């Protein structure tokens, strides 16, 4: 027995030498430890938020994602800010005037606004940023957020020069913007990250790389980036040069980049992060029932819906679309399938968009288009019979297309079952990889397809604009000149009541008459913040803002 153990010992020793030979030089430990994180000063307010995937870019002009915007909102500031009720409040601009026709906006900038390196923020910085975002050579995806500016689209498409733009620097602290059309929600747009100022000298010195390294990432916001560890975290400290720094509560923000849903929840519950907004949907019910979980079901402006291919039989018949839409039990879908606290959709424009009377919501003014608490079987069957398919007899084989994901698949299977039960129609299911799916759907090469849309700003136009005949996002291939005329009218009028009425009428056509699509549910934003965190703003566009957040017991 002693001999045997000797053998084993020697074997181990020999193996160690093999191991060392095998991986010598391969190991290069890279330290990314944030020492500061471990040894905080007692009174420092530190908030750790899980941002999700590493943002593709945090350059205000190039960013088009919510994660990137979440960083930019903390490191930059536009002419106006949005308060916790989404109402515009002064930002870099102290005050502004609008011409009577709603076309010319004049902003008066405060003269104490500074960049994080101490230089003053001037009107030129805004003019440069907007021209840059619209310049075709910049290749900015969200350039269309500036198409409201006169000749913005023409310049971006190469049909005008930068000098033709409706942007005029009157003096260092005054900028005048001329719009293409009166846009009642324009202040919301001025608060959008794409319109934030950037520094010409920095961008020209570093190129696109300026926004990929902490040293050159000069902003004018409440925080400045001090560390960017790719796919790991971004650290921000309070910007001592920010004009309103005394109102800013946190000393330090750490945005982590964990992507796996289960891991995100585990690290939240293990105290590694303070705020999360992604979690496995099957955990949501448990968190909702636990008063100590810090769970909040926030609003998120957007709708999950299904496209019927309006140009292809059998869905080119509005009666068929009506039958398929009414046969869906939306309440069952949100309660038994998605289970993430979503609201069954009785319209396309969900709650959260103000109407002409700002105390009322666009959604509530119009009322539901159908009953969402159950499947409207009788009505659905009648519509299908009127279309020439009584009890589903003779209905051609159709396919429901979705992109690969467990969540979408669960919904697809539920819909398949409902259509079979309630209409007697067999629907096949097919899934495609995300990018392939997008192409197929855009081409209109499907019968029924899943779809979804998140608002860019808090006006119903961001939703209804989708279904104009020449919209690039009109995946349902819906074409109705009457609809186009109503949207056009809403875009041009300067009368708020008239504008809202035109949009109500448009939605009435879309859902009440043509049944072009079938809305399933309104998105929600489930998030969790450690109990004790106060003053954080989770707005319905998906942004989390920590400017005024603090710990109650600190």
């Amino acid at each position: 027995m002693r001999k045997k153990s000797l053998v084993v010992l020697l074997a181990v020793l020999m193996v160690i030498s093999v191991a060392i030979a095998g991986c010598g030089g391969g190991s290069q430990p890279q330290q990314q430890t944030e020492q500061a994180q471990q040894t905080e000063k007692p009174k420092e307010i530190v908030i750790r938020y899980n941002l999700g995937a590493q943002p593709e870019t945090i350059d205000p002009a190039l960013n088009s994602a919510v994660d990137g915007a979440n960083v930019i909102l903390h490191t930059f500031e536009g002419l106006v800010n949005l308060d916790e009720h989404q109402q515009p409040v002064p930002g870099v601009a102290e005050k502004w005037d609008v011409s009577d026709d709603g076309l010319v906006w004049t902003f008066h900038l405060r003269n104490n606004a500074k960049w994080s390196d101490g230089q003053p923020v001037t009107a030129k910085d805004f003019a440069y940023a907007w021209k840059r975002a619209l310049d075709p050579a910049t290749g900015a995806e969200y350039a269309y957020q500036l198409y409201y500016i006169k000749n913005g689209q023409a310049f971006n498409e190469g049909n005008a020069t930068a000098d033709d733009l409706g942007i005029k620097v009157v003096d260092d602290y005054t900028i005048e913007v001329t719009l293409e059309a009166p846009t009642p929600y324009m202040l919301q747009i001025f608060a959008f990250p794409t319109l934030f100022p950037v520094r010409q000298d920095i961008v020209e010195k570093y190129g696109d790389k300026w926004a990929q390294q902490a040293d050159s990432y000069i902003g004018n916001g409440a925080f400045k980036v001090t560390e960017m560890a790719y796919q790991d975290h971004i650290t921000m400290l309070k910007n001592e040069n920010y004009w309103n720094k005394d109102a800013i509560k946190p000393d330090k923000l750490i945005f982590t980049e964990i992507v796996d849903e289960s891991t995100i929840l585990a690290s939240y519950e293990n105290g590694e992060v303070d705020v999360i907004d992604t979690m496995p949907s099957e955990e949501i019910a448990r968190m909702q029932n636990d008063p100590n979980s810090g769970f909040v079901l926030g609003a998120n402006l957007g709708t999950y819906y299904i496209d019927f291919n309006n140009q292809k039989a059998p869905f080119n018949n509005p009666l068929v679309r009506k039958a398929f839409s009414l046969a869906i039990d939306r309440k069952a879908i949100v309660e038994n399938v998605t289970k993430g606290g979503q609201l069954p959709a009785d319209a396309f424009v969900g709650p959260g968009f103000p109407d002409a009377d700002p105390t009322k919501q666009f959604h509530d003014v119009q009322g539901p288009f159908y009953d969402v608490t159950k499947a409207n079987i009788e009505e659905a069957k009648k519509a299908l019979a009127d279309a020439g398919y009584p009890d589903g007899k003779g209905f051609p084989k159709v396919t429901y297309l979705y992109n690969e994901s467990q969540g979408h698949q669960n919904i697809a299977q539920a819909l398949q079952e409902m259509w079979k039960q309630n209409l007697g129609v067999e629907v096949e299911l097919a899934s495609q990889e995300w990018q392939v799916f997008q192409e197929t759907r855009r081409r209109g090469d499907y019968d029924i397809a899943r779809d979804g849309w998140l608002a860019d700003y808090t006006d119903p136009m961001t939703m209804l604009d989708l279904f104009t005949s020449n919209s690039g996002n009109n995946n349902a291939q819906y074409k109705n000149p009457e609809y186009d005329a109503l949207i056009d009218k809403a875009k041009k009028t300067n009368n708020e009541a008239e504008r809202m009425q035109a949009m109500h009428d448009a939605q009435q056509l879309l859902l009440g008459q043509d049944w072009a699509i079938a809305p399933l549910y309104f998105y929600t934003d489930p998030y969790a913040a450690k109990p004790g965190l106060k003053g954080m703003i989770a707005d319905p566009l998906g942004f989390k803002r920590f400017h005024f957040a603090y710990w109650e017991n600190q």
Partner: protein
Amino acid sequence: MTKYILQRVIAMILTMIVVITVTFILMHAIPGGPFASEKNLPPQIKANIEAKYGLNKPLYQQYFDYWAGLLKGDLGPSYKYPGRTVNDLIGDGFPISAELGSYAILVMLLIGIPAGIISALRQYHWQDNVVMVFATLGVAVPGFVLATLLIYVFSSQLGILPAARWLSWQHKIMPTIALSAYNVSFIARLTRSSMLDVMSQDYIRTARAKGLSEAAVVIKHALKNSLIPIVTVLGPLIAAVLTGSFVIEKIFAIPGLGRQFVDSVSNRDYTTIMGVTIFYGAFLVIMNLIVDIVYVFIDPRIKLAD
């Protein structure tokens, strides 16, 4: 020997040219592109972006442009992360994947080989049974299941290890276990069968007949030869483990190269797909060459003749 190595290097270069060309063609053949997004872009904006990165040029032109950069060691800009180059992405991700991979290889060798040897020497005894039960489990349970289970037990329930990120040594324990479990089991099984095979050879009988102690038989005669099959698999295994695992890196939020690779494919980030493929391919062929050279030293039957 020099001539042999020279030939192999030439073959390696040819292999890489084929890999690069085939990857380039396949990548452009799949639908979608780096700038496809759910919110459909106005055509002119898309054209602006494509012009910025030279994607409006004919495909053959893009191919030659890519080679021109590659020969200068420039893997191009990442389309998905404006302002970052593929060299940056690999430079940031690889050291971290390699660090995790090194721990996994160490665990794999330090536990897998001794376990296999013990198992072979004590065939059909309890030691063998214990090792084989674990080895079967290790091969059968996928890494992501093990990873999730580890997080559940040690982070969510016990709260003794951090669930995510790559900071202190505590953060590195669970990823290492999850990444190495499969390979430990694989190496243990391989060592066991190889050892059993060697122990039944005539020269072992001869050694025993000479009156050598069992320890001397095992160490002097059996061990070296039984390691030959291990060395064979080590080349590709090391290449695979060091360049990172998508699943493990994603679950534990480790900023490594394995995640970049898979993400770049779903993002259609063409230059990153190419860059990481080339990096991985080169790593693999070099590891294979090293293994073939190492053979000469451990197996006297092999000569790298021309």
